[in-house]
């Protein structure tokens, strides 16, 4: 039932997205709310969000294929599939944000190797290829000798690319809100936390049905029985990482406010008490952190498929808002205060709220990713062992 509803919602979101894609390709960037001051908007935030999930999901796949932890046996393919679906979603999001998408080949053939952005493009391309090959191997030859090497390289890339995304923002010394040494250190933690939340969704809502269920496919031996235990451990991991995330926020915000550098204080105030205070307090902290923590520390609820799965959805929603709260506030603070009124024109504003086209495209990407993911769970042996399926 959940799957059917998600298929319908995903299809609907994709339909809305098609209008957004059409507008983007016909009118370019003219109907976007981002501009020359708030230069990166919703799509960049969603890029950070999706690639973070992708890296985190890959990290969790290593529990099965690299560290061979018995509890997580049989979850690796689902994690790799999650990583493979969310990575392109992030890349589409950032690709549409480019002024000249058709020149993307230049980053491969004429790159500036010292640019963090070029490093990210190269890194995520290699990472995506590794995840793809790893999934193919996991389905066809899970015991292949190359699997472990792929997992080691992929894990290394997942951690460093996550940190690299933090560095992408952090190297901007003129933006004090971003220019903190802690930023590249925070992002791998965010990635792992969002990967754990994704796995809660996958195992909780789409995981293997228990033995005896007539719809159950033959799965990796004992996997269905381990499901509730997996949810419990992933739930605890989400809780711990959620608390670490809150600590990072506290360290960051309290230090900024205490330090009193005007640009930094303005950005922090914008997040907590600005026009979109509700996004921070209600979505990021309330729905995305406090409620999941309360639910997931209770063994009975945390082991319940539905509860755990929907808590994963809430945590991911909180992360999406958190990413936006990292990107936008730093840009809504003028580099020089009088710039606000110095020159007027389209796309010259320090206020930002995504336009309809931006929302539509984002919805389309989420819808598309949801559909592809669901199709994968239906068509690919994500929770099943190949040998058992072919019997």
């Amino acid at each position, binding site marked *: 039932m959940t799957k059917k509803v998600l298929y319908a919602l995903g299809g609907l979101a994709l339909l809305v997205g098609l209008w957004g894609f059409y507008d983007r390709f016909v009118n370019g*960037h003219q109907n976007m709310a981002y501009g020359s001051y708030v230069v990166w908007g919703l799509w960049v935030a969603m890029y950070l969000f999706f690639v973070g999930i992708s890296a985190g999901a890959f990290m969790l796949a290593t529990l099965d294929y690299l560290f061979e932890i018995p509890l997580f046996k049989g979850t690796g393919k689902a994690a790799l599939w999650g990583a493979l679906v969310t990575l392109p979603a992030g890349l589409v999001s950032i690709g549409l944000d480019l002024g000249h998408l058709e020149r993307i080949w230049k*980053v491969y053939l004429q790159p500036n190797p010292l640019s963090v952005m070029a490093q990210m493009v190269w890194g995520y391309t290699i990472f995506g290829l590794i995840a793809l090959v790893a999934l193919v191997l996991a389905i066809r030859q899970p015991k292949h000798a190359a699997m472990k090497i792929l997992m080691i390289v992929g894990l290394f890339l997942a951690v460093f690319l996550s940190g690299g995304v933090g560095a992408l923002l952090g190297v901007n010394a003129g933006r004090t809100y971003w220019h903190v040494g802690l930023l590249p250190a925070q992002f791998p933690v965010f990635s792992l936390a969002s990967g754990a939340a994704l796995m809660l969704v996958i195992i909780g809502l789409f995981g293997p049905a228990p033995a005896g269920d007539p719809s159950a496919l033959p799965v990796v031996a004992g996997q269905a029985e381990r499901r509730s235990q997996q949810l419990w451990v992933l739930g605890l991991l989400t809780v711990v990482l959620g608390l670490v995330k809150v600590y990072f926020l506290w360290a960051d915000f309290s230090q900024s406010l205490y330090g009193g550098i005007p640009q930094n204080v303005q950005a922090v105030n914008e997040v907590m008490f600005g026009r979109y205070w509700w996004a921070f307090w209600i979505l990021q902290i309330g729905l995305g952190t406090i409620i999941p923590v309360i639910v997931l520390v209770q063994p009975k609820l945390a082991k319940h498929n539905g509860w755990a799965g929907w808590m994963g959805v809430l945590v991911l929603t909180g992360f999406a808002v958190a990413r936006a709260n990292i990107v936008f506030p730093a840009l809504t603070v003028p580099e020089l205060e009088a710039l606000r009124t110095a020159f007027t024109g389209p796309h010259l504003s320090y206020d930002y709220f995504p336009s309809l086209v931006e929302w539509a495209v984002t919805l389309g990407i989420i819808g598309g990713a949801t559909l592809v993911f669901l199709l994968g769970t239906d068509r690919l042996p994500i929770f099943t062992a190949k040998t058992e399926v072919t019997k």
Partner: protein
Amino acid sequence: MDKAPTQANLSRRDFLKSAGAAVAFLTTLEANPAAALTGAPARVSLAPLSFEVGPGDDVILRMQAELQRALAKPVDQRRWVMVIDLRKCVACHACTIACIAENKLPPGVVYRPVLDEEIGAYPNVTRKFLPKPCMQCENPPCVPVCPVSATYKDENGVVVIDYDQCIGCRYCITACPYASRTFDFGSTYTEGTPIAEGLVVGQTTADDYERAANFEYQEATARTGKDESPIGNVRKCHFCLHRLAEGMLPACTTTCIGRATFFGDANDPDSVVADLIASPNVMRLKEELGTEPRVYYLV
């Protein structure tokens, strides 16, 4: 020293030749305005301008003469700097307008805004104006972040953008601490304006003008398409390199009615700018970032 021809001593023959060329251009314009405006050659070259300057002459003339002197030097021995005397700026915005006209900037793209700040509380209020071109930093933070090296310091030390290389990621905008870069979203002034018949009025004619080549970086870059460069690119002040190459001062400098903007070669000890940046009342924006701007302010 030979006396170079100036606008003041044009011969009648020169005048008639110029007038003939102008008539020919207008004839083409009437037949096909777009072709006349956008079909300009990729490079144009003007006769070198030179002036004899004496005591009491306008500082613009002096800077013009210094420019000729600097251009005669090897490029690596020049150091272009701009000095803006904030005490003389009256916030007329002539520099902003001149820049827009010179570079045919579309709506939302600005190279030289003038910041207007009110200081104090009534009745003790004053206003401060700050014209803000690109700082042309010695250590530009915008350069290393570009993923395809589309923005770089050219041989003049001026930070430029290769429009055909730029992928429009806008990373350089986030890296610039001075907000000196804007993105060309493809807007036009004529969008939504009335259409009328005629040579000089109406949307079509005006739109042709808007899309005409602007000669930035000495290239005829017309905004012909919906998504062709420079649309979809980041754009910025380049000290009017195309004018410098022809021996002309940047548009903002020549149009400053208060003579608050100075431009020249700081490596020339006899230049106006070399004198001014040696003043004790000189400052640069956000010096603490170590960007070493080439734009100096007198306060």
